[in-house]
């Protein structure tokens, strides 16, 4: 029983990371029908930029490590990664909108290789650790709930992820710009006839998605303490799976898909076999898609009229 609760909590934590990254995939896909394979690397970049900023501010400048400072750095990292996301869209994707889907996928893969190796050149091929100093920021408090151990940092991560996702949901559902975004996702031409600047919306998508991904990267760094330059592929692939699982293009779908994937992984680790957890996650994905070809929340779209 204790182990079940423990794995559920672990699963929710990992799942919330997946969900944050999956949102970036799903938003870009919803608006552009493009799989942004470089998104995972933007997430990885967030982890590195978070480390570098934290090091710079806390270790070099000697600023007192506090929760407020941490949140501030969070915002800085999100802004930086969002900026890179926008540049990426301009350089690698915008020239290819008319060329069909395959060329943009290859361009995205090229961008992914570029980002990965850029980070490797800048910060080295070895893994990097978030220094011990930051442990003070989030006190090492652990509660026992029903035989399971819940750390304060886990709760903090869950709360931040939930806040970000709720914010996004309300933005997309209840603001004018959010409505415009949904309109563009439905139909570019009609949306632009309604006076929506489609390219501005695309830019916005490439601002929000990478910002959330970057936040996810820094959270993974803080939570696990160890980051690699290849982080983007392992997490990116999982998050993309999560987005598809929930129904790609669907924002609540990405959140649910991420959480489900995290839970599957944690339960597989706890009760089946750690070595097979990724295989099990993909297997569940295949099963779900066999029966629900458009994911859990994906709408049934008529094939062709």
């Amino acid at each position, binding site marked *: 029983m204790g182990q079940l609760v423990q794995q559920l909590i672990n699963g929710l934590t990992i799942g919330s990371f997946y969900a944050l990254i999956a949102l970036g995939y799903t938003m870009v896909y919803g608006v552009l029908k493009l799989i942004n394979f470089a998104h995972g690397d933007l997430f990885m970049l967030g982890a590195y930029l978070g480390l570098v900023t934290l090091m710079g501010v806390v270790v070099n400048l000697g600023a007192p490590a506090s929760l407020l400072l941490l949140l501030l750095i969070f915002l800085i990292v999100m802004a930086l990664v969002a900026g890179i996301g926008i540049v990426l869209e301009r350089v690698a994707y915008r020239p290819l909108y008319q060329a069909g889907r395959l060329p943009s*996928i290859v361009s995205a893969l090229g*961008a992914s290789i570029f980002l*990965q190796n850029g980070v490797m050149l800048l910060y080295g091929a070895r893994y990097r650790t978030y220094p011990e100093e930051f442990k003070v920021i989030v006190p090492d408090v652990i509660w026992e709930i029903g035989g399971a151990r819940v750390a304060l940092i886990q709760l903090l991560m869950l709360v931040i992820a939930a806040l970000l996702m709720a914010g996004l949901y309300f933005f997309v559902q209840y603001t004018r710009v959010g409505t415009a975004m949904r309109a563009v996702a439905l139909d570019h031409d009609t949306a632009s006839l309604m006076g929506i600047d489609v390219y501005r919306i695309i830019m916005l998508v490439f601002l929000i998605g990478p910002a959330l991904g970057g936040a996810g990267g820094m959270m993974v760094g803080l939570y696990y303490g160890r980051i690699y330059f290849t982080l983007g592929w392992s997490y990116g692939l999982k998050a993309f*799976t999560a987005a598809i699982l929930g129904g*790609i293009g669907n924002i609540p779908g990405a959140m649910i898909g991420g959480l489900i994937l995290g839970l599957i992984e944690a339960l597989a680790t706890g009760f089946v076999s750690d*070595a097979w957890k990724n295989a099990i996650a993909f297997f569940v994905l*295949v099963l779900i898609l066999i029966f629900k070809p458009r994911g859990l929340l994906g709408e049934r779209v008529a094939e062709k009229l």
Partner: protein
Amino acid sequence: MGESSLKDLIGRLRKLDERYLYSILAALVVLFPWIVRSVRWIQVVNFFFVYALLGLSLNIILGYAGLFQLGHAAFYAVGAYTTAILSSRYDIPTFWLLPVAGLLSAVFAILISRPILHLRGDYLCIVTIGFGEIVRIALRNDASSLVFLSKIPGLQFLEEKLTGLVITGGPNGIFGINRPAILGFTFRQQWHYYYLFLAFVVFTVFAMRRLENSRLGRAWTCVREDELAAETMGIDTVRVKLLAFAIGAAWAGVAGNLYASWVTVIAPESFSFWESVIMFCIVVLGGTGSIPGVLVGTVGMVVLPEILREVLLNIQQWRMLLFGAAMVIMMVFRPEGLWPSQRFRRQLELAKEAVGSE
């Protein structure tokens, strides 16, 4: 060589009949090992051949039939591991295993693709990635890691059978694969393999050209362009798509067999997601659905990094960074691929016209 003499040479070459040009090219290819006399570059070209075979096989699925397949390494792995296991355990000559590897790959492809054929575009893409990863993880974990199955009531007997069972060799893979031999001649040197692989690539290019213009090839094009219309015309779309997967996988399995018998040591990491990405990029970079395109794409994805290695003597670490940037630049400036098929080029022109007239 001076500039004027170079121009002179080009001018003289232009005047030559195309047939002579092709004969010269063919002669250069045949004599290549004797011209470069460098084991390393012959090895690079051997890699080129293996990936050209893989690219041509993926081209059937992705290029002709238009099915997003980003897990082609799985079929390659099935071919290579079939060869490796049977060759190292039962000492079967690897040439005999060539059809076995192809056939098993095809059967495997039919089994996994049948339930997912109804998926469209990007959903198919992630599922094929998923299968690719499942295969790699399975190879890495080996059979003994399945012991957890014995916890299921009724399957307890598996425990003793699975414990310590070695089939794929886990992360270390399999070594001691036989080298191919024919009529008492064993392939050992890099240049031996050069001619072996060259023969396979030439045969494959020939076969693909026949396939492209066959009834089945045209059915693939039709399914890719408009599945509903294809079905209305009486094409059994499920069968046609399954055949694309089966034939593509069989060819990848053959490439796996050749690869295994060439390197004689294989490990799961040679069949990772990265390999599938390379194959995918070979097809799209070269020009989706175009046979010369696949060959040019293979040069870009396999030979170019090696050339960069030679050129960037002091800034070796920049190699992959430049390579990634080159991929983006090539796609941005030539979205139709380096050597596109006629059909794709026309499609892109039409799309541009449509945009221009808005």
